[in-house]
């Protein structure tokens, strides 16, 4: 039954373009649809992986009803609330819930705007955005799963601080999910003898699963989405470096002080680290470490101007995008071939996280079409209130508002779509955002990446880290316990400081 439903879902997704293609032209002239046929010529704003789109059908979002954001809000709220309210139901049926929102959106969209327009957006979203996105995550996750942090360590404050720092650095190289997967088990193993260790896991969530990933587009999905939209890879590195270093630095100092206090309260003596047979702290999995820079190169290859590979229903697919996807799949394949099985076993590696991301983001990307179009419609559009909330009376962006608005939404909803919402609220032009409004883009990036740590649901690796820690016997706090005991008293003052210093 489950397989039949999955098959039906995949069939609908894959066959709909073919079906619709036949009727595309007639739908385009549908009198009651708000569809425009536009010619896009702006070379400067052409994002990575997006070719020029000639006479492509576009929706006119200026007069759209806000009801069109229901599927987008629905999938985001499902991701946020179901794991808290009915974790077992969600675990077994999240794919169906995601498919439900996808069908609600696509059927309504194609009915209202015409099948041709629906097909155009379907192809544009999946070929130019979703496939590069998911293949990057797949490659990062697979390569990270073949690297292991090893060593017989006593969980002293010094050792714990160093391990969290290593995890924070890895986060920007292999993604927060991979880094959290690689780091959490050695940290838990080193601290198994300790009674008070909840704070250690919490700081792994803060630094490794969130803030540490802020340095590169590989680190956190929002930054990669920015890259897909045209933000330069090294713009992110250069501009985010001071912020990430500042926040990680403060968090590690706070952690060291807290951990030293709790360490001194331990009744049992520390597990000796003076044994002759002890294994030193080391990263193992050299072939996969070599593959990490290959991922960077594969991602950068999408910036090459190699022309258009093919055009399908107005969507021009750049050769560079195909090259990037092919390279990432090749890296994934090589990683699987060269990795030692015991390393993957030690990391608890399985495909479930990637399946989850694929099933949920397939819907997020599609349902995001209307809210983003509404934001692009500007201050007079249906979501003008959002835009007016982040500009002053002279129409200038208020960066601190961008930081907090992106951050607060990223705390409760997935940070990747939240980033895109505010990226488009700020105009959505990558060239403008990297130059004239660089501080605004920085505020959006920092808000989306850093404040994912505010709650368990802010960023996907938070839940994974919590779940692994619980299975290792750590009594992790509840949803509100995490917020009131840790994130509000520790992170919020740090973010206030960031606001005053950087925005």
């Amino acid at each position: 039954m489950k397989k039949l439903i999955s098959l039906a879902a995949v069939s609908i997704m894959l066959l709909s373009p073919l079906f619709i293609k036949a009727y595309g032209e007639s739908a385009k002239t549908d009198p009651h649809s708000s569809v425009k046929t536009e010619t896009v010529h702006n070379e400067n704003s052409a994002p990575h992986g997006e070719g020029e789109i000639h006479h492509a059908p576009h929706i006119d979002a200026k007069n759209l009803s806000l009801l069109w954001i229901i599927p987008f809000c629905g999938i985001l709220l499902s991701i946020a609330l179901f794991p808290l309210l009915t974790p077992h139901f969600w675990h077994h049926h999240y794919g169906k819930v995601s498919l439900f929102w996808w069908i609600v959106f696509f059927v309504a969209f194609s009915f209202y705007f015409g099948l041709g327009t629906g097909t155009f957006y379907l192809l544009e979203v999946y070929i130019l955005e979703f496939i590069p996105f998911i293949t990057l995550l797949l490659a990062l996750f697979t390569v990270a799963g073949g690297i292991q942090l090893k060593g017989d360590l006593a969980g002293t404050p010094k050792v714990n601080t160093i391990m969290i720092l290593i995890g924070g650095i890895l986060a920007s190289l292999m993604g927060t999910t991979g880094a959290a997967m690689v780091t959490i088990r050695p940290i838990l193993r080193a601290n198994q003898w300790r009674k008070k260790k909840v704070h250690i896991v919490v700081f792994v969530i803060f630094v490794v699963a969130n803030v540490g990933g802020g340095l590169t587009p590989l680190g956190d999905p929002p930054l990669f989405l920015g890259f897909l939209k045209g933000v330069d890879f090294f713009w992110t590195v250069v501009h985010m470096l001071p912020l990430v270093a500042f926040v990680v630095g403060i968090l590690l100092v706070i952690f060291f002080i807290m951990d030293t206090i709790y360490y001194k309260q331990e009744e049992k003596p520390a597990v000796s680290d003076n044994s002759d047979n002890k294994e030193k702290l080391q990263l193992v999995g050299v072939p996969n470490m070599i593959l990490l820079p290959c991922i960077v190169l594969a991602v950068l290859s999408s910036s090459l101007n190699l022309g258009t590979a093919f055009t399908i229903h107005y969507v021009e697919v750049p050769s560079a995008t195909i090259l990037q996807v092919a390279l990432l799949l090749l890296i994934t394949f090589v990683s699987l071939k060269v990795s030692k099985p015991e390393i993957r076993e030690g990391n608890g590696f399985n495909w479930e996280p990637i399946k989850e991301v694929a099933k949920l983001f397939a819907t997020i990307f599609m349902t995001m079409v209307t809210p983003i179009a509404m934001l692009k419609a500007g201050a007079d559009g249906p979501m003008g209130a959002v835009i007016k909330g982040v500009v002053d009376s002279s129409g200038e962006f208020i960066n601190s508002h961008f930081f907090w608005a992106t951050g607060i939404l990223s705390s409760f909803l997935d940070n990747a779509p939240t980033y895109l919402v505010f990226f488009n609220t700020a105009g959505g032009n990558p060239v403008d955002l990297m130059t004239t409004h660089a501080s605004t883009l920085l505020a959006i990036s920092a808000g989306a990446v850093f404040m994912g740590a505010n709650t368990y649901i802010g960023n996907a690796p938070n839940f994974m880290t919590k779940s692994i820690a619980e299975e290792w016997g750590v009594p992790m706090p509840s949803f509100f316990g995490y917020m009131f005991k840790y994130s509000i008293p520790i992170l919020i003052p740090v973010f206030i400081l960031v606001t005053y210093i950087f925005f």
Partner: protein
Amino acid sequence: MSKKFYEVVFEGNLDIIYGMLEGFMLGQDGNWEWYSAKEHNIEAETFTEIIKEWASLKTRLHHIIMEEEFFKKLKEASEKRGEMRFIKAKYIKSFKEIKSSSFSFEARAYAKKYGEEIKAILSKLPQGVTLEKYNPSEIIDSEAKGTELYAPTHDYTFTAEGIAAGEFGEIIKLRKILDDHPLVEVGKIKLTF
């Protein structure tokens, strides 16, 4: 024969009271058990005492749980000796014999190893201690095995809650054992007189 305990309310400086108790034990060469209610999470203060403490901004009343023999010898000695510079007979404001005691607990574990540990503690109860409203539950969901990002559940979940009740001497030891387990939350010890 199990030991009897008394809840004794002392009035005065806490350090002096502690010093008196330790000093008395040294002088008598006794090896009695005594526990401060505050330090051992024993629910002892009355509502009026709490209000008085808030109003005066200092704690003058201290609830100490003492073995019967210790309490009786101390009481007798302080009454015989009369007023001293620091130790006064009137320091003992009141005393009550403890008939029984209890505390509530809640446990939650997501790995069989820890579930078994908790079950083992609760299956070997000391003499004179019983469990009330104890409802352990184990849920095994083999499909939930592995690491998940957006839909995390555990393949093993052990939950239990209940009330341990019985003689004070055993209850305080059991509470300490359960409190030392990171996956068990224990409530304050309630005394019945």
